Structures are given as C-alpha cells and as structure tokens.
C-alpha cells in the first residue's frame, strides 16, 4: 500500500464515520479526527486535530475522570502513604490495584498501594457533610497502620458539591498526627478527562510536599551528588521504572527518586536537590517538572525508553547534560546492550515486518511506543489519545513515520469503524476495547497494563515487548475463528 492510497483511505474513513452523527455531534467530532504526516508543517497539533475539549455526550468515550488522574495515576502509587478515596464506595473499588504499579513492601504494614481505603459515604454524610467522618478516618488509620508516612484525601464527585472543607481537616489532622496529609480536590466532574486530575495532583505535590512540613521524614542521610537525577512520570507498570533505572545507574547517574511508581515520600522530598529531572510521561507530570525548574532551578528533559532507537537517542540526550565520564559510560551501555537488541530484532522482525498497528492509549504511549513498533518493522497507521492536549499532538508529529490517522478522544463507535476500514494486523489499546477486537479475530495487546506482562521500558523491556507482539500476532488461535464448514471469502 503506497502512502497516497493509505492517506486517501484514511481520509475517506473519517468522512464516512462522521455521517452517523447528528449534526452538532458531527461538527464537534470532525475537529478531533484528522490525518497526520511527518511532513506536515505549520500546525500546532498533528493531523490538525483539536484536543482537551469536552466529550460529546452519549457516545461511549474511553475517558476517565480527574479522580482517576489523581488517585489512579499520580498519587496512588506512592507506596508509604495511605490514599483515602473520599466519598461513596465505588470509585476506590473500581480502581483498586488495576494499574499494576509495582512496588516492594509489606502491604498493609509499611506500604499500601494495592489496598482500598474508602470513607464509604452514606446519605447522612451527603446531607450533613463528611468532614467529621474524614477526621475520624485519619485517627483510625493512625491506630491500625502506624507505619504510614502520610495520608492523601482523594476527593470523589460529591465532596466539591456539598461544601466540605477537606483542606481544613487536613491541616488540623496533620498537626495532630505530625505527618503529611494532602487534600486533593480531584472530584470526577472537574475538567474533561483524567488530565485535569494530573494537574490538580501535581499542584497538591507542590503545596503539600514541597511547601509542606516534612520533619517526620529524615532526608539528612542522603548527600547530594553531581550525578543525581529523578525519574518523573513513570508509574512502574509491570516494573517499567526498574528496567529504566538500571540503565541510568549503569551510565553512572544516581536515581534519587521515582515519580511515582514504587515511590516513597522521602524520594519526593529529595527531588528538589537533583541536577536533572527526567520526564517520561510529559502529560501527567510536566506541571511539577516546570514548577521545579522555576522554583529550584532544576532543568528537565523528556526522554523515551520504548524501543532501542528511541532509547539510544534518549540515553545520549541525557548523557549530554553531564560530563564526559557519563557520556563515555553511556556509550558503553549502548554498546553492551546492542548485541542483545540485534538478536531480538533478528529473531522477531522477520515475523512482524510490515504488519500494521492501530493504537489508542493515554498519557505518553500513543507517540512513545511508535518507535518500538517501527524498530520491529511494524507500521503504525493510526494513533490517538484519551486526554491529550495540543502539545502532545505536536510531539506526536515528530514520532510518526507515515500518513497516520489521528483520533482524539475516540469513542467505541469510531475506533471500531476505523479498524474495520483500515484493517490493521494489531490493535493496541485498553481493557474496555480489548474484547471487541478479539471477537473480530484481531490480535490485540493492552497498552495500559501490558496485558499483565512487561516491563516494556528499556532494553530488557523491549525484548519482552517484541516477544509479546509476536505472541499476539502469530498465535494460532486467531485462525480458529472460521469453522471448516464455512466457505472461503
């Protein structure tokens, strides 16, 4: 398929898809769908799509909410703190332990990530307010989980609607127990997606960690060095941060903190003294990186540890910030892993070459994983984000290889239609969409949870990624869909 026919096909698909909508919805969705190309110029996005706008009602968006962005993404993985889902019981239950934020600790004793703490609002809490109950929650946590290093209040929708003052509760209780308490106003109705939740959560880090009283955490035993860095925006899904960290340490850097996969409060407290912040998920943590730059003068750079091409580029970019000894070691690291990567590509590329992929994910992955697929000879022909902004799409333009259909906040109907029209060999998205495409007999990989595999970051992660994509595409199970008595065609 030549690039021209691909582009024409993609444009025709968009036109066709818009026909199903009532006029107002069609007008809206038209602006979120486009065809991007690496050669596009004079655009502040990619494929000219609009983003970060209200979802069209009634269309089965895949988006989440601000609470998901704060509790589920930013705060939830901080392992030595207890995160209270503040409000009715559902939110905490549905989001419990679903993101695979790996950590080391004794759960329920000194770490708490996979647990679910809820203030379990009842009608009387709605009518009379829940502040008193919240205060009592803190007291009970202190008795039963004495080794926690702090508590966050993750607000669910009703909190902001009934006029509760969780900031006041946090202030009083923090003084009482002598630990960090972080109130987060991440009610689900705020903003248009999980994105505002990330921002609100970042602001809470600024106000209650950086500007807060951390006297209960001893940081004096860590002496800063010239080579200190922090990993920002890596949630250690399936161990991603660990398989990234190892590379940075091998090139002579000292990773002082992980934000926020496998993170502890102390690591967050140590971060304002690092020399460089390394930002993986730009979308969810650019805010705190910018703040640290402004407030503490710490520069930040974006990097991408998916696939060897991007990993090598990123390692060199990071090393360039430091002295020659680091740069030399960086080259040693690259050289050390190259034979393994060559072997992985030699093994899997012939099995995957030319296979087409359509992506729909959140955060950084709709652009960051493109290189990893392309390293294996696979061709990404469609991508989109659940909750991106213009700056994400702008960055996407730099990562695509060919004419690519771009769909922002794509809904169930559109994604299904795009897949039917463009017929990729693999769809890579989330759990909600997974079985739709598998029913159609299409190989599928979850790119939020790595389908319970991973890590996918770094060199070791890429080997797993390659193996998993091969597993999905070349499994014999897809051939069974058609029964032997069905006619060909």
């Amino acid at each position, binding site marked *: 398929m030549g690039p021209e026919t691909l582009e024409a096909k993609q444009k025709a698909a968009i036109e066709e898809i818009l026909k199903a909508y009532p006029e107002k919805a069609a007008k809206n969705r038209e602006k979120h769908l486009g065809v991007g190309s690496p050669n596009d110029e004079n655009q502040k996005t990619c494929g000219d799509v609009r983003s970060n706008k209200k979802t069209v009602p009634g269309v089965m968006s895949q988006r989440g909410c601000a609470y998901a962005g704060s509790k589920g993404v930013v705060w939830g993985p901080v392992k030595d703190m207890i995160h209270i889902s503040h*409000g009715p019981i559902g939110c905490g239950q549905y989001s419990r332990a679903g993101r695979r934020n790996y950590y080391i600790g004794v*759960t329920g004793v000194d770490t708490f990530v996979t647990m679910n*703490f809820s203030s379990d609002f009842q*009608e009387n809490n709605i009518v009379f307010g829940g502040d008193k109950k919240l205060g009592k929650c803190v007291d009970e946590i202190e008795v039963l989980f004495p080794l926690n290093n702090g508590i966050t209040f993750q607000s669910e929708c009703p909190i902001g609607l009934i006029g509760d003052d969780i900031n006041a509760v946090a202030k009083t209780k923090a003084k009482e127990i002598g630990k960090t308490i972080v109130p987060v106003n991440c009610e689900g109705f705020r903003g248009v997606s999980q994105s505002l939740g990330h921002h609100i959560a970042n602001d809470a880090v600024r106000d209650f960690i950086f500007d807060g009283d951390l006297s209960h955490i001893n940081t004096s035993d860590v002496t800063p060095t010239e080579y200190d860095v922090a990993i920002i925006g890596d949630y250690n899904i399936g161990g991603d941060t*660990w398989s990234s960290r190892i590379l940075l340490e091998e090139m002579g850097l000292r990773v002082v903190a992980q934000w926020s996969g496998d993170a502890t409060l*102390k690591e967050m407290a140590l971060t304002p003294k690092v020399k460089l912040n390394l930002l993986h998920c730009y979308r969810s943590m650019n805010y705190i990186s910018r703040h640290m730059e402004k407030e503490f003068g710490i520069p930040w750079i974006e990097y991408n540890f998916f696939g060897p091409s991007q990993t090598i580029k990123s390692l060199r970019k990071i090393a360039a910030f430091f002295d020659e000894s680091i740069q030399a070691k960086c080259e040693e690291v690259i050289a050390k892993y190259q034979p393994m990567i060559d*072997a992985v590509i030699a093994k899997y590329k012939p099995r995957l070459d030319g296979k087409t992929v359509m992506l729909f994910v959140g955060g950084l992955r709709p652009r960051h994983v493109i290189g990893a697929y392309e390293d294996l000879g696979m061709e990404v022909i469609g991508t989109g984000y659940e909750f991106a902004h213009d700056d994400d799409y702008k960055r996407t333009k730099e990562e695509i290889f060919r004419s690519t259909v771009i769909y922002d906040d794509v809904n169930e109907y559109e994604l299904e239609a795009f897949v039917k029209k463009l017929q990729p060999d693999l769809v890579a998205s989330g759990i909600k969409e997974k079985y739709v495409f598998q029913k159609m007999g299409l190989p599928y990989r979850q790119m939020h949870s790595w389908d319970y595999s991973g890590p996918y970051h770094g060199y070791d992660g890429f*080997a797993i990624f390659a193996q998993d994509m091969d597993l999905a595409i070349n499994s014999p199970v897809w051939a069974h869909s058609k029964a032997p008595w069905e006619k060909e065609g």
Partner: protein
Amino acid sequence: MQEVEKIVNGKDLFKRPEYAEVLANKKQFESSMLAINPAKVDEIAEWTKSWDYREKNLAREAITVNPAKACQPLGAVMVALGFEGTMPYVHGSHGCVAYFRSYFTKHFKEPTPCVSDSMTEDAAVFGGLVNMKEGLKNCAAVYKPKMIAVSTTCMAEVIGDDLQAFILAAKEEDKGEFLPEEYPIPYAHTPSFVGSHITGYDNMMHGIMSQLTEGQKGETKQRINIIPGFETYIGSLRSVKSIVEAFGTDYIMLGDHSDQWDMPAGNYEMFQGGTKIDDAKDCINSSATISLQKYATSKTMKMVEKRWKHAGGFSNPIGLKGTDEFVMKLAELTGTEVPQKLKTERGRLVDAMQDSYPYMHGKKFAIWGDPDFLLGAVSFLLEMGAEPTHVLCHNAPNGWEAEMRALLDTSPAKDSLNVWAGKDLWHMRSLLFTEPVDFMIGNSYGKELMRDTGTPLIYIGFPIFDRHHLHRYSISGYDGALNLLTWITNKVLDQLDEDTKHIATTDYFFDLVR
C-alpha cells in the same frame, strides 16, 4: 540482560542479580519502614495478627479498608444489559462509566457497552439537562439501541437532576428525529451513597418493569417471570432457564445477560440476546414472578406482589435445598409433577455429594459475598457437613443478619459459626489470624488474604479478575451445586497433596487414590 532465546518478563527478570542490586540500592532513598528498619515491620506485622489488633480493627467506625461491595449504578448497568438491544446510559461524569465498563470487562473478559452524558463543572452548576438532551440523541443515532436505560451517578444525585422531566424534555426537543415518543427510555435514580450495587440492580429493574408495563395490564397469562438478580454466573442463568423449561411452562426471564456477556468469537455485535422488549412490556400479565435474589430485588418484588398481585415470591436455587425449593415452587405454580429430568439431575448431585462428603465434613470455611449468594452457598456448605466459621457480608441489607444467623443455627457447630454483617475484608484479615479456618470462599480480593494468612482461596463470587472462565459455569440448580462441590472438594484435595508432598517426611499420605 535478556537472553534472546529465553526472554523473561517481570516475573523472573527482577529476580536476576543485576536487578536485585538496583532494588537494594534504591532503599537508601526510601522512607518506607522496610527500607529503614525491617525489624519494626516484622513487629507491626506480627501485631496485626493479634487479638489486640482485632479488637481495634473491629472497633472501626469511619474508615473502610478493602471493601467487598460496589456502588449502585454498577447494578443498574447489569440490568440494562439483560434486555434486548439496550444501551445502559449513566447520567453523570464519564469517569464512572469507564470504571463500570472496565470492572465488568475484567470479570467477564467480554465487552461491556455503556454510555454516559459526560457531565462536567457547568453541569454541576446548571444541572445536566443539556447533557441529557444531547446524550440521548447521540446515543440513539450512533448505536441505534432498541431501548436506553438511564441511571445516575452520585454527582447527578447530589445536584438533584430530575430524570423523568429531563427525558421528557429530550424527547420533546428532538421532535421525533431520533427519540420518538414511543421510544422506551426507562430510568432509575441510583445514588452511590445509598446501599450497594444490588440496590442499583433493584432500582433499575423496578424502573424498567414499572415503566415499560404502564398501560399494558390485560388478561393474566399462565406464565412465570423469573428475575435472576445481580447474577454474575452466566451458567447459572442457563441452569435456571433449563429448570423452568423442564416444566414446559411459558416464562420470561427479566434481565437475561447470558448472551451479552458470553459472545462467540468471529464477529462482534454490540448487543446480543436479552429479554425481548415486548416480553418486558407484557410481564405484568404473567401469573407469577419468582425472584432468585431476595435482597437484590426487594423494591421490585414489593411492586410485583402488592400492586401486580403475582404469585411466586423468592427462591434461591443455590445448593441442594435451595434448588429443591425452587423446583417445588415451579411444580406448585404450574400444577405439574417434577419432571423426570430434574429428578435424575438431583439424584446425580446427591450421589456426588455422598461420594465427596468426607473431604468437606468438618472443614472450616470463611466466606464473603453478596447477601443472597451467601445464603445459598452457606446452605450448601451445611448440607455437606462443613462449618462456615466466618460469614461476612459487607453490603448486608436489613434482615439479612438474622436470616443468616437462623441458617447457621441449624448446624450442630452453630456456636462456633459467626455472622459478620457490614464488615470489610480488612476485618476478615483479623478474623482469619485470630480464629483461623481451613479454606476461604470468595472473589479475587481474597488473594491478598491468601498471601497474608496462608489460607487457601476457592474462587467463587464476583469479581473474579485473575482466574479465567469460572463465570461461564453455573452455581445454581443441581448442576450448579455439582460445580460448587467439584471446585471445593478438589481444592481440599489439592491442599491435602500440598501438605503431604514432602519426600520421605509426609509423603506416605500422598495417596494415589482419594
């Protein structure tokens, strides 16, 4: 570093020495107590196993830790997906819908369609009428459902949106383009801060049954309505239908999602199976209605019994006795003999129970789940001579505790059997440490209890995320009881092998025949 001929994922990768070093290095920057003072962690971990901790834990009044319940709209979504071509529509923020869909999908390994009208800040201030008008229209245009079933999130409930008025307004404004006058859009208010997912089930079922049957009352037909309740076992729905069909009677299963959440591969259609809309409209004219879950349908059944004056009532076909009662109820309502097919099935079940009883007799169990599931499953444990030591129901409605107590009191071991209403799974942890049992029966949330206490977990309940295909089986009827018996007995046998497999020390008891 990976070896290309033996690429390993996180399970084995991080055991390698280079990663052990990375993780050990990281500790110097950590504030978790394991990094600072592992002995302190051991001390507290030990203390959490004590009676002192248990008392403090049971005294909790405010914080819920590791709940075993969900919120109302989840149940409403299940009801909607049990009706032909019906789109569940949740009036509120779309984050909730993302959660309902992923929660069900992780359990069933099936797609779960559901839309929301994506309310945000402005809707919080001005109400969600605009969202509802647009949302219903878009949903109807894009997905072309035969019916849209509207429920609410807590946001819509707190601001007090009026569903009935909003739906009327949406139809009025649409002027019949997408939402004609007769287009069925039943609704239910499902506040998350009242009851649990089973309350939402009840409210939505009540909404659909009461609203679709308006003006439909005609002559009574010899026909039985079956309401399954919040049933997460696809096979159970099929078992129940097969029992009713054995009587040769006309029936309507109201809310039958057995095809929706069990689609064959090869093709994807958004909606499959479900109660026919016409049947749902006519269900008021049936002669009887049987609800299989008393506590998940109390409001609905009040309407059916008081206003519709249907015969029937409740019957919980889990276990031998429960199925017997269901079968006898059907025999009574249809005025027919119990069919031979069911007599044979019963005989086979009893035969199997008599084959396996030594392995369940006297074994102590901890069990948790929804109230009606527990009444059935505990009854079955008692039928086998097992001892349900801890029976925990986080979302126990009024009346359940006394009913469960009365059931446990039929056991010779009654004095050591405990009912825990309104307690969560962190309470359960203390109970398991202080008064241990041999096995646990519950959902995936039990796996942390299994890890912490060492008690083997038998996966029966909802949700089950980390074991495959169990939801396809039945736990209802005689065949369902046989599944329960098989799963439990074989877990007991697995454990017996685990305990006796040690070479030259215990393996004399590692018998080939059991």
